[in-house]
């Protein structure tokens, strides 16, 4: 028995292929005699551009305030209040979109697709935190990013993550950044947005799997400080590198370190580095040899990973809808798959040649081949540099916040006795002036 819906679909296809859209009017619009007035469809307007500009101004103000609170005021409480504000404004009010993390993809896409223009607000969301990080360290992470804020708020019972695990997990963020750039550059998908764990929490609706993922991550955040920021966030990767060379930086003590070790365990993100011991001559020589070996290994690793990334292009290119469609059409044409999908039906409705689709798909696949070299090379370099970093002898005299890992949350300030002395001095001054 042929079902009615099948008949309707086949007629749809038939009509579409004959150009339903070309303005055939099967039933001429009537001339009304009763004085009936024809309504016209309503067109409710989107959010006005003015509000988008206000968002940029709020971002700028929050970044400025955050820098002041972290570097001058040195008050965890004030940072906390700003963090709550950012969570409410950028998170729950603005529904978490567009965010600086996702803006990476828009910027990347604009490099590779000449037809794509980034709205100016997104450009600002991408650039402003970077500029501030270059000057003041990761003040964006401290109190402006709503994703960081929501994790920071629930951090009640922090456990420290062992160093080797922390370093290992962190590599994932680099790979994620690479993948996000690859898929954005090829115009396939915005993976950062697709797998953003907290945006559905901000909206209290969305894809069920992502909601569960977000809830799990929040649960983990109770015990492990900011897991998304440390191990996943692709924007954090860029901020880390810029923070290494920032003009000003977070210092645990406002004065000279007295090595009292009180701050040692105060950081829930494992960003406080102890003073280094001198390496023995034996260790030194061993590490020097290892370093030389790793430097030679670096290009080999990059090339190897590049080759792997490139040869995986048949898998990675399936993120692109055209490639998926071409695959499906090929299966249908060769009789390997029965029936049709919505996409293949829609394609046949356009009347486009199958060969044209195949060429388009193989072009995209070739682009994924080239992109795979770059992505793989990047992964190789990241692993290589990580290994090299482990073999270099770093010198530290004091307890310091690691420039790259420090999220400028300000928790360590009040653990420093010197900070208490400073606060007292400040209070005395205020008392005198009154």
């Amino acid at each position, binding site marked *: 028995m042929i079902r*009615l819906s099948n008949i*309707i679909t086949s007629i749809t296809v038939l009509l*579409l292929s004959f150009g*339903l*859209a*070309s*303005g055939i*009017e*099967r*039933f*001429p*619009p009537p001339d*009304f005699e009763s004085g*009936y007035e024809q*309504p*016209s*469809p309503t*067109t*409710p*307007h*989107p*959010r006005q*551009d003015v509000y*988008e500009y206000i968002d940029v101004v709020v971002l700028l103000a929050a970044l400025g305030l955050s820098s002041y609170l972290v570097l001058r005021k040195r008050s965890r409480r004030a940072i906390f209040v700003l963090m709550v504000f950012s969570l409410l404004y950028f998170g729950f009010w603005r529904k978490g*979109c567009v965010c600086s993390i996702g803006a990476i*993809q*828009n910027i990347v896409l*604009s490099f590779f*697709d000449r*037809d794509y*223009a*980034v*709205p*100016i607000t997104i*450009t600002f969301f991408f*650039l402003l935190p*970077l*500029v501030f990080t*270059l000057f003041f360290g990761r003040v964006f992470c401290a109190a402006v990013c709503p994703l960081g804020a929501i994790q920071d708020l629930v951090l009640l019972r922090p456990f420290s993550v062992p160093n080797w695990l922390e370093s290992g997990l962190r590599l994932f963020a680099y790979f994620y950044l690479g993948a996000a750039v690859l898929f954005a550059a090829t*115009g396939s*998908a915005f993976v950062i*947005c*697709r797998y953003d764990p907290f*945006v559905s929490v901000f*909206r209290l*609706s*969305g*894809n069920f799997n992502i909601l569960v993922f977000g809830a799990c991550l929040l649960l983990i955040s109770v015990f492990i400080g900011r897991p998304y920021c440390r191990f996943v966030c692709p924007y954090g990767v860029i901020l880390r590198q810029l923070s290494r*060379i*920032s003009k000003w930086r977070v210092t645990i003590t406002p004065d000279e370190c007295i090595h009292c070790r009180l701050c040692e365990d105060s950081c829930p993100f494992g960003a406080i580095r102890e003073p280094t011991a001198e390496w023995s001559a034996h260790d030194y020589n061993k590490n020097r040899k290892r370093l030389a070996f790793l430097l030679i290994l670096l290009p080999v690793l990059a090339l190897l990973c590049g080759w792997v990334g490139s040869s995986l292009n048949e898998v990675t290119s399936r993120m692109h*809808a*055209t490639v998926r469609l071409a695959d499906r059409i090929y299966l249908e044409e060769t009789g390997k798959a029965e029936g049709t*999908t*919505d*996409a293949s039906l*829609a394609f046949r*409705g*356009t009347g*486009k040649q199958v060969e044209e689709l195949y060429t*388009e798909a193989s072009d995209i696949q070739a682009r994924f081949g080239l992109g795979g070299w770059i992505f793989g090379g990047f992964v190789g370099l990241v692993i290589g540099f990580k290994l090299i970093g482990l073999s270099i002898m770093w010198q530290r005299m004091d307890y310091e916040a690691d420039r790259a890992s420090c999220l400028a949350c300000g928790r360590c300030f009040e653990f420093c006795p010197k900070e208490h002395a400073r606060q007292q001095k400040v209070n005395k001054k205020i008392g005198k002036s009154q």
Partner: protein
Amino acid sequence: MMTENNNSINRRHFLRDSLWGACLAGLGGLAGFSVGKTSKTNTVWQIDPEICIACGNCATYCVLEESAVKCVHAYAMCGYCRICFGFFGPEPFDITEGAENQLCPTGAIKRTFVEDPYYEYTIDESLCMGCGKCVKGCNTFGNGSLFLQVRHDRCLNCNECSIAAACPSGAYKRIPANKPYILKRVDPVRNNTAGRTPLRSRRFSNGVDHA
């Protein structure tokens, strides 16, 4: 020994400072490059009704509980038929407004008598869930005056629209926010299929021209 140490610190500072300058210059360059690639107006997602096949994904894939996509009626194209294929199911028991005869799963289309033999069909947006069943019916057998549009009073304008990611025909595109709708009109020039954008490849393009 002391001086040597100082030298190495100075050298390190110099390297760090130049790297810092290079990064700032890089960001400046990025900003400069972006200026040529930015659009002042924001962009919004919209469905091109000429490409849309009314598959029904709009009703289920939106991140909102109730989809931002609704059916829109271009009255000027409507034939005001007594038997509307957007309103009645494939095999209606009777040509009346009874729920059992209707195609719309939520009863969002209102059928009112205008004058013999014409009936007006209005969409109650608070009931419409954007499934596109009526759109399919109207496109197949009628004038195609019903079509789906993203309603911007509801749309959150996600950076990646999750319906767009699931759209089988690539009908979603970004368009400037000051002209946020692609309405169907009785206009043979616009409806000409020759000027269509190629399937899918321009999903992220937002129609802003670059010289």
